[in-house]
């Protein structure tokens, strides 16, 4: 249970997701029967040790489903999820136990994440009792210590119930619970969305501090791009269940290459007018029950051409560590529309 054992060097992947697919059956009578919502479609991502990967995207893009799939709630329809060298994608309880030791999640709504009938002490200690193998005194010491780390005193808060906590305190308790078992991977599902502005800032600072101090690995789901900029080392944008672009945070914010990323970023209010070309997304995302052919973003893309409907763009590297799934990636905010469609298709088939 200690960290004394030699761990592989930084940079080795803690989370590896390979072609993960998550679908939900839509039970309907008649014509639509057997239809499926494709919530996560062939997503492959890696998160290195000590890295914070943020996943951003609109509501309904499958971010939260992706996070819950890692938790096995429910397990993926296909594909592999490996955490710290252990496959956790199975439905069996043994997979869940491996997951319990290595993955913890911080949920969006702390009030739903804390059992109202449990004391703070019991809540924070739950991952330890689930894994077992720790006596009561050691457990209580660890709980006191981790509560101290999130800035709450064990003697004042240990006996409280969740309804006696403020939103910010409750989220700190949720963070303490996530960290108490020293997991390899911490999934944060919009950890500050449900909090007021001042608690948001505190919780973000706390998450950043804990990451620095303990070398935590985060998978960070967010739609607040300011928070992402503060916490993430790398960002992946997701649209309708697919990864559009992954890049180091700075690179992504300074030069987005996927039109969807650019549109997301241009939604950030700027102090300098006309700094970036304004890209507006029209309408709503198409239904994930029947996603568009080819590129899923093409129906709302300003740069879409015929090839986008026919060939699905694969993720390819445009700069070191910067991957994009687009036939016409942007350079400096402008589309590479000079490239004829046939050529792009040819390049695509070459790549495949």
């Amino acid at each position, binding site marked *: 249970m200690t960290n004394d054992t030699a*761990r592989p*060097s930084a940079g080795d992947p803690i989370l590896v997701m390979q072609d993960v697919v998550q679908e939900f059956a839509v039970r309907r009578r008649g014509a639509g029967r057997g239809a499926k919502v494709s919530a996560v479609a062939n997503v492959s991502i890696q998160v290195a040790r000590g890295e914070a990967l943020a996943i951003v995207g609109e509501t309904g893009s499958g971010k939260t489903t992706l996070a819950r799939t890692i938790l096995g709630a429910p397990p993926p329809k296909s594909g592999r999820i490996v955490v710290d060298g252990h496959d956790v994608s199975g439905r069996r309880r043994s997979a869940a136990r491996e997951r319990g030791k290595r993955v913890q*999640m911080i949920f969006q709504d702390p009030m*739903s994440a804390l059992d*109202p009938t449990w004391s703070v002490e019991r809540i924070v200690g739950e991952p330890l009792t689930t894994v077992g193998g720790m006596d009561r005194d050691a457990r209580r010491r660890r709980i006191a*210590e981790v*509560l*101290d780390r999130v800035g709450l005193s064990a003697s004042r808060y240990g006996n409280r119930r969740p*309804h006696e906590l403020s939103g910010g305190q409750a989220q700190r308790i949720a963070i303490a619970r996530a960290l108490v078992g020293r997991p390899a991977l911490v999934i944060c599902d919009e950890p500050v969305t449900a909090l007021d502005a001042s608690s948001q800032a505190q919780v973000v600072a706390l998450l950043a501090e804990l990451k620095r101090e303990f*070398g935590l690995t985060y998978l960070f789901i967010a739609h607040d791009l300011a928070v992402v900029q503060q916490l993430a080392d790398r960002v992946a944008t997701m649209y309708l269940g697919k990864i559009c672009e992954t890049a180091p945070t700075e690179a992504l914010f300074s030069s987005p290459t996927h039109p969807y990323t650019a549109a997301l970023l241009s939604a950030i209010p700027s102090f300098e007018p006309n700094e970036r070309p304004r890209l507006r997304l029209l309408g709503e995302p198409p239904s994930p029950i029947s996603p568009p052919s080819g590129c899923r973003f093409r129906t709302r893309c300003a740069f879409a051409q015929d090839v986008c409907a026919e060939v699905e763009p694969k993720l390819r590297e445009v700069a070191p560590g910067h991957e994009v799934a687009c036939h016409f990636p942007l350079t400096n905010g402008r589309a590479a529309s000079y490239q004829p469609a046939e050529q792009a298709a040819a390049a695509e088939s070459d790549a495949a």
Partner: protein
Amino acid sequence: MSLQDSNTFVSADTRVVESEASRWASRSRGRVLADGLRRTGRSFRRAAIIVPAAILFVIALVCFAGPAVLGLPAPATGNLADYLLPIGSPGHPLGTNALGNDMLSQLLVGGQVSILVGVGATAIGLVVGVAIGMIAGYYQRVVGTVLMRVLDVIFAFPDIILALAIAAYLGPSVVNTIWAIGFFSIAGFGRIARAQTLRITNFDYVVAARASGRSAWKILLGHIWPNIAGPVLAYALIAVGYAMMAEAALSFLGLGVPIPTPSWGNIIAGSQGFITLAPQLILMPALAMFATIASMNLLSDALQARRPS
């Protein structure tokens, strides 16, 4: 963000030794338990809960301790010559029935039997029904569907007819009455437990516990039961009242508690022939039953309105 940093987590162990947190960490088990009890106790301190609970307590106390304390005659050892004495007769404060049995004794001992049947039958329904309902709500795919269809079958029977059939098959006795009434109360508990379980399993704390490989029974007993106990116990109080009425109905029809053992139901049944001559014989057990069941329903309402501890 080097790897060495992650060892601060271990060294924090030593840092915390002198702090107040370590004193907290070494609190005795007794203190922890007392703390919890005090918290729970506080949430019950309100008139809407205390008043009906006190009434129920007094009724139960009088029924169970009364006959011995007051030195009452056994309920079925009356003198036929003293038949139908009015209320306030010397030696028989509530009079006698047609067979000369002391009514106060009949009422109190009958109360024991009625309460026993009501609580016993509800206990059976609660334990079996809640177990089925929680499992059905937790394993929603196959197990849950099958269990709920089984409960639907029980639910589809008119319950008093079902109880009649069971009671007629088993023969009239106190224990058989408990089984008969208990059996048909299973479905109600199963329904409410499943509905509440479905609500709780969607909370993130259950999702997290499940994802971490916490065992199903630990989740069911640790997370789900404490969170559904309120509504389920509130329903149980109503179910006790309902079971007492069912007992009265069965006894009235001669399939419940057999004479000479009195129960509120069979006192009413046995006295119906004298409704014009001595209406108090029917009114007294009916009032006792009304007071008990009304208090239980009030208590049930108040408990449901209570904020979670």
